[in-house]
């Protein structure tokens, strides 16, 4: 059926032929028509999971196949939501080893994006916990890939944005936890130097900094660094210790209508950022936060992407390598502050070593910001692209909706190998997305 699709950023929008397969045979039939791209829960920001000729909505293939409560191993179909993995297995004492900032993503999407979390420096990406994948190739055959058989496919698929085939099933490991609570510590940082100092010295499992994009001069990079560790059962206050995996249900709010475009000008942004700061400084110090509020604060605000109004928004997320991080981030933040287009959400994280041949993270700092889409912000992002390339930075394809093929090539030396691999394996004609066509992948 023809459907108007967009990513989470609601930009760009395209008319796509969408099928929602319930079994392998239906996937095979769609692949035979080609080209296709698999789509999970539509949380990639741009056109990574959109193909005008054939988009496969994988959410109906979402069954748990097996669970080993002793080793924390899960086997499931690719359309299962990460949030459902948590509800099913946290009561057994297991939590995802790596989670992005929303639980409303599918496992297939986690693999295709090779997601990272606030613990990347310590624990790597999702791929590190992957035991195997079942993936459909261009001929409609299902291939089991793991570290020993079809190991090239197993290495290339994480981060490949679905361009190595349709991920059908996966086996992966979870992390043992003693409770559903996170011991959170908030550290206000006066500027970028102070924030980086916190990142470099902390031994917390999770770390992330929320930015006030409007700070200039000495206050550039003024931020709140949020550190977290899984709370042990013994350290919990007695009311929580009794049922350590039980956390209060959160009330969901919904953004009912599209906000008008003028709703987000620099004054409302400044007010929001100040409020966030104030709220943060007030809670400075240590506290226990339930897993849902800690990892997924925005999931409680359903359809929050509508706050940017009908034109949609774009996210700019890059990683700048460690040696040029300070200079690169300063240039980026300066340019953003000068433009007054600072975004609703700005996040800084420390990343660890690169984990795969087309996976996004590398040792350095990653900055992510949202911009409402308009001519001025698109021009600003092109400026930021150039700064990123100048500092040896790299772009996160999951967030991308507007990069040019030239910029991607300039930023990421791995692109030619990726294209060659796709050609060699006969994948190029069979699997393609709006993004891969735009970027010439």
């Amino acid at each position, binding site marked *: *059926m023809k459907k108007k699709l967009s990513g989470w950023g609601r930009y760009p929008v395209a008319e796509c032929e969408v099928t*929602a397969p*319930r079994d392998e045979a239906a996937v095979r039939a769609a692949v035979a028509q080609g080209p296709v791209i698999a789509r999970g829960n539509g949380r990639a920001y741009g056109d990574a999971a959109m193909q005008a000729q054939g988009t496969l909505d994988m959410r109906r293939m979402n*069954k*748990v*196949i*097996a*669970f080993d409560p002793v080793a924390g191993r899960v086997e499931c179909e690719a359309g299962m939501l990460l949030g*459902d993995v948590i*509800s*099913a297995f946290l*009561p*057994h004492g297991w939590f995802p080893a790596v989670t992005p900032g929303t639980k409303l993503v599918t496992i297939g999407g986690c693999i295709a994006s090779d997601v990272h979390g606030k613990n990347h420096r310590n624990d790597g990406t999702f791929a590190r916990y992957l035991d195997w994948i079942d993936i459909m190739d261009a001929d409609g055959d299902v291939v089991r890939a793991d570290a020993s058989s079809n190991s090239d496919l197993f290495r290339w698929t994480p981060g490949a944005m679905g361009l190595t085939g349709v991920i059908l099933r996966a086996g992966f490991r979870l992390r043992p936890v003693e409770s559903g609570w996170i011991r959170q510590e908030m550290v206000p940082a006066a500027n970028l130097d102070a924030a980086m100092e916190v990142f470099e010295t902390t031994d917390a499992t999770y770390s992330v900094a929320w930015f006030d994009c409007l700070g200039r001069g000495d206050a550039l990079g003024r931020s709140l660094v949020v550190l977290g560790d899984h709370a042990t059962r013994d350290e919990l206050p007695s009311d929580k210790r009794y049922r350590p995996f039980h956390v209060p249900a959160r009330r969901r709010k919904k953004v009912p209508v599209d906000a008008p475009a003028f709703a987000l000008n620099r004054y409302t942004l400044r007010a929001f950022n100040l409020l966030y700061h104030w709220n943060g400084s007030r809670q400075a110090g240590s506290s226990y936060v339930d897993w849902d509020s800690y990892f997924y604060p925005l999931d409680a605000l359903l359809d929050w992407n509508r706050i940017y109004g009908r034109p949609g928004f774009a996210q700019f997320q890059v990683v700048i390598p460690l040696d040029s991080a300070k200079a690169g981030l300063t240039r980026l933040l300066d340019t953003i502050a000068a433009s007054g287009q600072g975004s609703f959400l700005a996040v800084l994280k420390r990343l660890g070593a690169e984990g795969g041949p087309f996976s996004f993270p590398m040792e350095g700092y990653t900055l992510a910001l949202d911009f409402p889409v308009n001519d001025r912000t698109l021009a600003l992002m092109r400026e930021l692209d150039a700064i990123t390339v100048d500092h040896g930075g790299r772009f996160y394809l999951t967030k991308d909706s507007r990069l040019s093929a030239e910029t991607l090539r300039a930023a990421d030396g791995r692109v030619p190998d990726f294209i060659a691999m796709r050609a060699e394996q006969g994948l190029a004609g069979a699997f393609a997305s709006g993004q891969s066509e735009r970027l010439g992948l």
Partner: protein
Amino acid sequence: MKETVLILGGRSDIGLACAHAFAAEGHPVQLAARNVETLEPARADLALRHSVEVSLHEIDALATGTHGAFAAGLEPAPGIVICAIGALGNQTADEEDHAHAVEVMRANFEGPASLMAVFANQMAVRGEGVLVGISSVAGDRGRAANYIYGSAKAGFTAYLSGLRNRLAKQGVHVVTVKPGFVATSMTEGMDLPPKLTARPEEVGQAVLSAVRKRRNVIYVRPIWRVVMTVICAIPEAVFKKMSI
């Protein structure tokens, strides 16, 4: 220990959604369908996700002679029975295909009513239990577009209403569910208006809440109550010339 929930029509999207909603609350589940062994992946999924007992049971809704033995053989006897059996058919084709039209009517009325009958008697003896029938807004008024399906659902709605009346004094509660449009395999490929179309999970949640609150008749999306009130209020002289 929470009551065991029997899902009649355990292959249907609505039936499975109900199974998930109740299993998530810790209810053991019995899935009944034809060729039920093919539901093993769904069984495993339910059991692993929600850590509850889930069993499979063979049932043919149209083999009404087997229903008594089927109900008697379930161990434990279910405290909540949800009937999601039904077939949409193809109105235009079935106007010519008499045999298939009859089958659609039997699948939507005779089979479901026969199953409800045996569980009603079982629950009446125990003096407790909840019966849930998934009927349809199509049963509220016969329309040219789907009256074969709709008339059978009308019969099922009336049957549930009668059962509720009879069993109210015996501690057994009966819920009639009129889901409206639902995005399921039954409606796949149809161009349904999004505001009027529920996801199967919404139906599951609505059934769970209706059972807990002992509701009598529910429309899953409240807008449907309004829509059907309007449709039922149109005078027959006007209605017969309309195409809706």
